[in-house]
């Protein structure tokens, strides 16, 4: 078997799980195709514009980040910056502890997964309940999400029903409607008991300091409506210049993610609740997180920071479909994860440097990307970086011996003749990479030297 970690993971999956991932991602891709090409005459033009807006923002991030922070403060929100995961966790725990908050409800945010926020808050004695249905299932089954948009793409209804039965939400029933209603009843109580809400942000508009949140279930709405304190955790790369630009991104995000024109709920939040409004926070905090992003910005893969986390590249990727999200061993799976995970890993780059190799460089991810990220180019740059930094890749034979033989004609001739022993050598003597290859391939018999013989004969004929 291949020694690449992603291949090993894929090989170890049950057929059931493989089917869940393959069918789910395929359906997601088909819905996207219908929505994008059904609605737009020139979707690629829109993708290019969106990519340029994002790249422009990143190239002027100092300006836009300061502007967004200043506007949010003017709107009455408190702005925090966190250089790394630890700083972000301490900041958020501090906010909640100052309010003596004992219970928090949390909407889906990839950044909070990145810094393992829920686990940390639980350690601080603060209950932190995931409210997105998929994330809730992940949390109560002690699992991790396998997809950016559909966290439990890898699970089927039977597994979910078993989990719900185990945690006491009722006797086993795997009807999707019953599963959803049980979560509704359970989580409703959690919203109403909670002291604080934690959400992410899909975009932050620098000109108005508005946080934009896009969801389908209404859980982030409920988190914010039912509590008095709203904490937003957001990566610094989520800033965009103006509200007008939201038109471009909102038109692309839901179509790319789920094939909808718009997600069901789009929330534009610029501060605590308005005067006269009885429900919602009187205190809003926004935590801007770096956690490796400025390093990415300084490197040659900065385009990946354009990503708006729609998951379209996962759904279309032949490797993701076979391997599933967990094979990427990090918060961000699929093609975007293959780029982002090694970069965000910092000193632990080598642990994830196999991910950029887990691609045929077909570029399907680039074709569907709403912000036009040339993911296949970035994968090549990361492969190069792995080579430059001396990361060993399993299964790749050294070329040193070959280059020695190939540069000495007598040695080459001798090697061609000696190669015949390969036909009779027992297979256990072969190097591991060749053994792995042989599991699925038929080794042809040795033909080394055949060309030289043919050429020599042809020359003799012509000359004679």
């Amino acid at each position: 078997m291949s020694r690449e970690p992603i291949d090993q993971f894929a090989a170890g999956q049950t057929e059931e799980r493989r089917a869940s991932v393959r069918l789910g991602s395929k359906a997601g891709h088909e819905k996207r195709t219908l929505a994008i090409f059904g609605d737009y005459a020139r979707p690629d033009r829109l993708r290019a514009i969106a990519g340029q807006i994002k790249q422009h923002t990143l190239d002027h991030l100092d300006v836009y980040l300061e502007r967004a922070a200043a506007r949010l403060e003017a709107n009455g929100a408190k702005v925090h910056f966190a250089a790394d995961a630890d700083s972000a966790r301490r900041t958020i725990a501090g906010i909640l502890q100052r309010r003596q908050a004992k219970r928090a409800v949390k909407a889906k945010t990839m950044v909070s997964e990145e810094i393992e926020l829920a686990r940390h808050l639980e350690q601080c004695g603060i209950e932190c309940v995931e409210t997105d249905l998929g994330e809730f299932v992940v949390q109560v089954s002690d699992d991790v999400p396998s997809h950016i948009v559909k966290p439990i793409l890898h699970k089927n209804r039977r597994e979910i029903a078993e989990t719900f039965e185990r945690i006491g939400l009722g006797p086993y029933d795997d009807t999707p409607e019953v599963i959803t209603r049980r979560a509704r009843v359970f989580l409703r109580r959690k919203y109403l008991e909670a002291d604080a809400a934690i959400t992410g942000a899909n975009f932050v508009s620098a000109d108005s300091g508005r946080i934009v949140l896009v969801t389908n279930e209404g859980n982030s709405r409920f988190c914010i409506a039912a509590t008095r304190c709203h904490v937003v955790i957001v990566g610094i790369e989520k800033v965009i210049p103006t509200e007008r630009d939201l038109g471009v991104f909102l038109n692309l995000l839901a179509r790319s993610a789920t094939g909808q024109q718009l997600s069901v709920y789009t929330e534009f939040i610029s501060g605590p609740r308005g005067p006269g409004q009885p429900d919602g926070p009187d205190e809003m905090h926004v935590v801007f997180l770096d956690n490796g992003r400025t390093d990415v910005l300084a490197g040659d893969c900065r385009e990946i920071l354009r990503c708006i986390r729609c998951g379209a590249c996962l759904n279309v990727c032949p490797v993701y479909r076979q391997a599933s999200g967990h094979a990427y061993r990090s918060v961000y799976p699929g093609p975007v994860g293959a780029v982002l995970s090694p970069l965000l890993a910092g000193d632990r780059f080598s642990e994830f440097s196999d991910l950029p190799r887990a691609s045929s460089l077909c570029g399907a991810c680039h074709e569907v990307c709403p912000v036009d990220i040339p993911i296949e180019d970035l994968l090549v740059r990361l492969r190069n970086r792995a080579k430059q930094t001396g990361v060993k890749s399993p299964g790749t034979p050294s070329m040193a011996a070959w280059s020695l033989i190939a540069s000495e004609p007598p040695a080459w001739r001798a090697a061609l003749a000696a190669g015949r022993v390969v036909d009779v050598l027992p297979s256990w003597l072969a190097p591991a990479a060749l053994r792995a290859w042989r599991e699925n391939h038929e080794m042809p018999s040795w033909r080394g030297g055949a060309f030289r013989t043919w050429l020599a004969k042809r020359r003799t004929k012509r000359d004679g």
Partner: protein
Amino acid sequence: MDDRQRILSRVRAALAPLPSRAAMPAYGDDDGVVRETAHDFAAAVARAGGRVFLEPALLVQWLVGRGDVRGYCDPSVAPEVRLALSRGLVLETKLVRRRLDEYRFGITRAAGAIAETGTIILDDATCSSRLAALAPWIHVAVVDPDTIRSRVVDAVGALGTDPYVLWCTGPSKTADVEGILIEGVHGPGEQVVLLERRFAPSSVRPTR
């Protein structure tokens, strides 16, 4: 140096060596335009899984037919509309949080709508209670037809200054379980629009 300064200086250091920086692209609102140009709000609401009623009496008929007769109604909905709704329905004008599960519907005013997508727009100034528009199984948004905007790009340009603007496009939904669409996850399972010109201006909204 605190984290704010640290991050900003790292951003500046990262950008400083760039030989050139990407310009903001020039783009027009038509670059995001959808193929079909005529937008029918009611049809778009239906496409998104919602319902439209043109008369309070028809809404009452539908609610009574479902057996959903008791619910919340924003006290600032125009009196003649409330009167029409109260023929057959029991309307409470104060939302009691601990009885949240007892409200079968919540009727609140919308700040506007988007024809392209069938979206209703709520904000803190117009909506009397965020929870009333969210917790009951049925949310009825009273939409003044004059406030319907044509496209998403138009609505984005008119967000105004309200601290909480919310776009609702159809009922709350999920496809987390095997990709099967289920409506009414945490929010309303029925998103209803009552198109109504008799719409109280926000100035008559009572103080709470």
